C-alpha cells in the first residue's frame, strides 16, 4: 500500500466550552505541536485533560475557538469532517448495527472514486490484515468485543486515510486482549507507515506503542517526547507522577556539578551529551543528579528547593539492620513488603519521615526484608532527575 502519510500540525489550538453552570471550561489551551509523517503520537492524560477534544478538533467534530489545524500543508480548520481524509477508531467502535461486517468495512469506499475491483481488493487485503476474512456477512452484534474492535480498525484503514485517529480504542476490552490488540495496532500502523494520533489515559499503553507521547493536563501540553524521555526526564512533577510510579526526594540545590572529576565525568558520559549535572543535598547527603537546563534559575526563585525524581527501581538495598553499607544514601524502616514473583515491592519510611517505594527485582537471590527491618538505600544517580520544587498549580 502506497504510503499516504502526511504530517499534522496544530497551531495554538484552543477550545472553550460553556459548562452546564454557564462557566467557561478551557478544554484545550494553546495546543501547538507537529506530528511527523508516519509517526504514532499518543495524547496521554487524566480524564478531562483535553486529549479527546484535541483529537476531535483534528477530525473536525469540534470547531476550535481559536487556532488552526493543518494536515500536510493543507489548512483544514474550517473543513467539515467528511472532507478531511482522516479515519477514526472510536471508543465505542461505532459500528453501524444495521449493516454487516463487510458493509461496515466497505462504507468509507462509497465516497471514494475507485473501480469496483480496486474496492474489493482493498477490502480483501484489509480483512486479511486484521484477521477477519470469512466474517464479511456477519452482523456486528454477533462478534466478540475484540472482533468488533478489528472491524472498526479495518473500516478506518480501508480508506487509506492521511491520518489515523484513535479515541481510547481499547478501553472496552479486557486486560489481556488489550495488550494483544495494542501490539497489533502498532504492527499494522508501522507496516503501513500511516500517521496516527492515539488518545489514551493508560500510560503503559502509551509507552508500549508510541513514537512520541504528548502528556496533557488541564488543556495544556505538559511535555512532548519519546517514551523514555517522558519517563526518565519528566519536565514537571505532574508528568513524573502521571507516568509510572515515582518517589520525590526533597532537596536543596548546591550548584552545578563539576564534570572534570573522574566519577562525575563517568556519569556525564553515561547520560550522553546535552545534559546538565547538579549537586543536590538530600537529607545531608550529596547527590549528583541530571536536571533541566534552567533548573538553577527556576530553583533560585523558590530558594533553592528541588525535587529529585527517583523511580522505585532506581534504588537498591544495600544491607539491612546492623549490616547497612556505609555507601548507603539513606536508610529507613520497612513498613510494607509484598511479593510479586518477578520482584519484591517495599514500602520504606525514610529517616526524614517521607515514605519511599522500592522495587527489588530478582527477589529469589538472598533473604527478602521483613516489615520492621531497617534498610539501607542506595540511589542509582544516573537514573535520577531533578525538578524545581514549584508549588503545585
Amino acid at each position, binding site marked *: 500500500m502506497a504510503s499516504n502519510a502526511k504530517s499534522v500540525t496544530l497551531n495554538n489550538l484552543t477550545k*472553550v466550552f*460553556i459548562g452546564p453552570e*454557564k462557566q*467557561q471550561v478551557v478544554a484545550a489551551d494553546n495546543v501547538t505541536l507537529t506530528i511527523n509523517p508516519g509517526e504514532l503520537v499518543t495524547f496521554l492524560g487524566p480524564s478531562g485533560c483535553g486529549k479527546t477534544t484535541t483529537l476531535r478538533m483534528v*477530525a*473536525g*467534530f469540534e*470547531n476550535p*475557538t481559536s487556532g488552526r489545524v493543518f494536515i500536510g500543508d493543507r489548512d483544514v480548520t*474550517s473543513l*467539515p*469532517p*467528511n*472532507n*478531511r481524509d*482522516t*479515519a*477514526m477508531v*472510536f*471508543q*465505542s*467502535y*461505532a*459500528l*453501524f*448495527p*444495521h449493516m454487516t461486517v463487510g458493509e461496515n468495512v466497505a*462504507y*468509507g469506499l*462509497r*465516497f*471514494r472514486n475507485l473501480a469496483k475491483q480496486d474496492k474489493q481488493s482493498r477490502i480483501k487485503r484489509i480483512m486479511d490484515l486484521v484477521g477477519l476474512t470469512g466474517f464479511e456477512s456477519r*452482523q*456486528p*452484534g*454477533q*462478534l466478540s468485543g475484540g472482533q*468488533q474492535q478489528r472491524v472498526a480498525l479495518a*473500516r*478506518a484503514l480501508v*480508506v487509506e486515510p492521511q491520518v489515523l*485517529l484513535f479515541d481510547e480504542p481499547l478501553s*472496552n476490552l479486557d486486560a489481556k486482549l488489550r495488550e494483544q490488540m495494542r501490539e497489533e495496532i502498532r504492527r499494522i500502523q508501522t507496516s503501513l507507515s500511516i500517521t496516527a494520533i492515539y488518545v489514551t489515559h493508560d500510560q503503559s499503553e502509551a509507552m508500549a506503542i508510541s513514537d512520541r507521547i504528548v502528556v496533557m493536563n488541564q488543556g495544556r501540553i505538559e511535555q512532548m517526547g519519546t517514551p523514555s524521555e517522558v519517563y526518565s526526564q519528566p519536565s514537571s512533577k505532574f508528568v513524573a507522577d502521571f507516568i509510572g510510579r515515582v518517589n520525590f526526594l526533597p532537596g536543596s540545590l548546591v550548584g552545578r556539578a563539576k564534570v572534570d572529576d573522574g566519577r562525575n565525568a563517568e556519569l556525564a558520559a553515561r547520560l550522553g551529551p546535552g545534559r546538565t549535572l547538579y549537586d543536590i543535598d538530600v537529607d545531608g547527603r550529596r547527590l549528583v543528579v541530571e536536571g533541566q537546563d534552567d533548573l538553577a534559575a527556576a530553583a533560585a526563585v523558590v530558594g533553592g528547593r528541588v525535587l529529585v525524581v527517583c523511580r522505585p527501581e532506581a534504588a537498591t538495598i544495600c544491607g539491612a539492620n546492623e549490616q547497612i553499607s556505609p555507601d548507603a544514601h539513606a536508610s529507613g524502616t520497612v513498613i510494607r513488603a509484598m511479593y510479586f514473583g518477578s520482584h519484591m515491592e517495599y514500602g520504606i519510611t525514610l529517616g526524614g519521615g517521607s515514605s519511599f517505594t522500592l522495587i527489588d527485582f530478582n527477589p529469589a537471590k538472598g533473604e527478602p526484608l521483613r516489615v520492621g527491618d531497617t534498610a539501607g538505600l542506595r540511589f542509582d544517580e544516573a537514573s535520577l532527575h531533578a525538578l524545581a520544587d514549584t508549588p503545585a498549580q
Partner: protein
Amino acid sequence: MAIEQPRPRTSRTRDTIADVKALARDPILLATLAAIVLLLSVFVVWPVWKVFWLSIAPRGVLSLDTYRYIFSQKWLTRSFTNSLRLGAISATTSTVVGFIFAFGLNRANVRHPGFIRQMALLPIISPPFMFCLSVILLFGRNGLITRGIFGRTNFNVYGLWSLVLVQTLGMFPIAYMVLDGVLKAINADLEDGALNLGASRWSVFTTITLPLSTPGLASSWLLVFVTSLADFANPMVLAGKYDVLSVQAYLQFTGMYNMPRGSALAILLLFPALTAFLVERYWVSRRSYVTVTGKPSMHTIPMVSRGVAVFCEVVCWITALATIMFYSVVIGGAFVKLWGVNWTPTLEHFKYAWDVGSNSIKSTVLMAAGATPITGFLAMIIAFLVVRKRFPGKGLLGFVSMLGYAVPGTVVGIGYILAFNRPPLLLTGTGLIIMLCFVFREMPVGIEAGVASLQQIDPAIEEASRNLGASSGYTFGHITLPLVRPALLAGLSYSFVRSMTAVSAVIFLVSARWNHLTALTLAQTEIMRLGAASALSIFLIIIVMVAFAIMRVLVGKEHRPAGMLPR
C-alpha cells in the same frame, strides 16, 4: 456626557456567534431550520395567537368586555370550576389505578401479566366516546343494568361521576405508562438493600419505593389533568347539566356564533392546561431521581405481602373486566334492533352506518393516512435537530414543537378556523386544514419517539459516517433513519390512531365534503341512534387494528443494537 463603553463580549455571546457561524457554513441545516420555524409559526403559534387576540379584542380594539361578562355570569364561571374539578378528580383516580397496575405488574407479580398489560393499553387506541356509549347502554334510560336488572327508568346517568368513570377508564393508561417506566427504572438493589438493612416490606414501600416514585406520580397526575381538561368527546355526550369549558366553548363558538366568547372560554381552558404542562415538563420531570444505569435489575423475591398482592390483583382484574364489558356492550349494541327494548339481532345498523358513513370513513382514512408520514418526517427532523445540532433558539424550537401536547384541541380548532379563513391561507372547509391539524397536533408524539430513540444511538455512529466521508444528509438518510425506523414507525402508528380518533379540534374543522368519522359518530350519539354509533365505533376499531397489523409487518425484525454502548 458619559460615553458608553463597549461591553466586553461575554463568552456566552461568543458561543452564540460561533453557533451562528457554524450554521452559516451548513446551508442545508440553515434552510431546514428556516422552514421548520416558518411552519411552526404559521401552524402552531399563529392560530393560538388568533384565539387570544379575538378574546381580548372582540371588535378589533383591546377590551376585556368578554372576560368581564364571563366572570359576571355564574353559568360560565361554573364551567371553569367544573372543568378543574373534573380534571382533579380524574387525575387522582387515574393515577391511583395506574399506579396499582404498574405496581402490580412490576412488584406484586399479578397473574397473567401479559393480558393485564394489554388491558391497560387497550383504552389508548379506543374510539372516543366509546366508553360513553357503553355507560349509556349499561346505565342509561334503557340501560342493561339500570333498567334490565333493577327496572329503573328514571336513573340519571349524565353528570360528573359518569364522566369520572369514563375518563378514569380511558386515561389511567397514561398514568400506567408513566409509572411503569418509573418503577422499572428503580434499581431493585435499592429495595433489596433496604430489606437487607432490616426494613419491613411496608417500610421499604413507604421509605424507598414511594418517595422514588413521587416525581412520577406528580407527572402522571398533571398529564391526566391536562388530558381531562382538554377532553371534549366524553363531556359532550355525558356531561348533562355539568358544564365544562371545552363543551361550552364549542357551543358558544359554533352554536351561538359568539366567536369572542368561545375564544375567551378556550383561552380560559388553555391557561390551566398550559400551566400544568409547564410544571410537569420543567419542574417535576427535572426532579426525577431515577437514572437509567443500563444494568437490568430483577427482584427475585416478591416485595409485597399476600394481602397487597391480592388487592392489586383484584383492582387490575376489575378494571380489565370493566374494559372488556364496555367493549362487549358496544359490539352487542351494534347487532340488536333497539337496545333495552327490542333485542332482535340485526345488521341494519351496519347498513345504515355504511350508508351515512362510507364517505366519512374514506375521507377520515385518507386524511389520517396522508398526515401520518408528513408528521413522522417533520417530527424526525425536529428530533434530530434538537438532539444532535447546536443552534441559537434551540430551546424555544423544542418548546414550540411540543406545544401540541399542551394546547387543548378546542383551542386549536377555534384557532385554525380564525387563522385560515381568508387568502392566501383560505383553508376552512378543505381536507387540507384537517390534515394540517393532525400533523401539528400529533407531531409531539413523533418527536418524543424520535428523541428517545436518537438518544439511544451513540453519536459516534453518525460521526464515524461523517469521518469516513459521508455528508450530513447522506448520514441522516443511510445511518440515522434506518436506526430509528422501528421507533419511528411505532410512533407513527400511534399518531395515525390518534388522528383516526381525534375529536376536539376536528369538530370545528369538518365540513359536509370532508367529514370525520368521530364527528359523525358524535352526531349519531346525540340523536340517540346508539346502534349506528356503535356500528361506526366498530368500523373505527377495525381500521385501527388493521393499521397496527400493517405497521407490525412494516417494522419487521429489529436490529440488534451492536456498537451502541451506553454512554
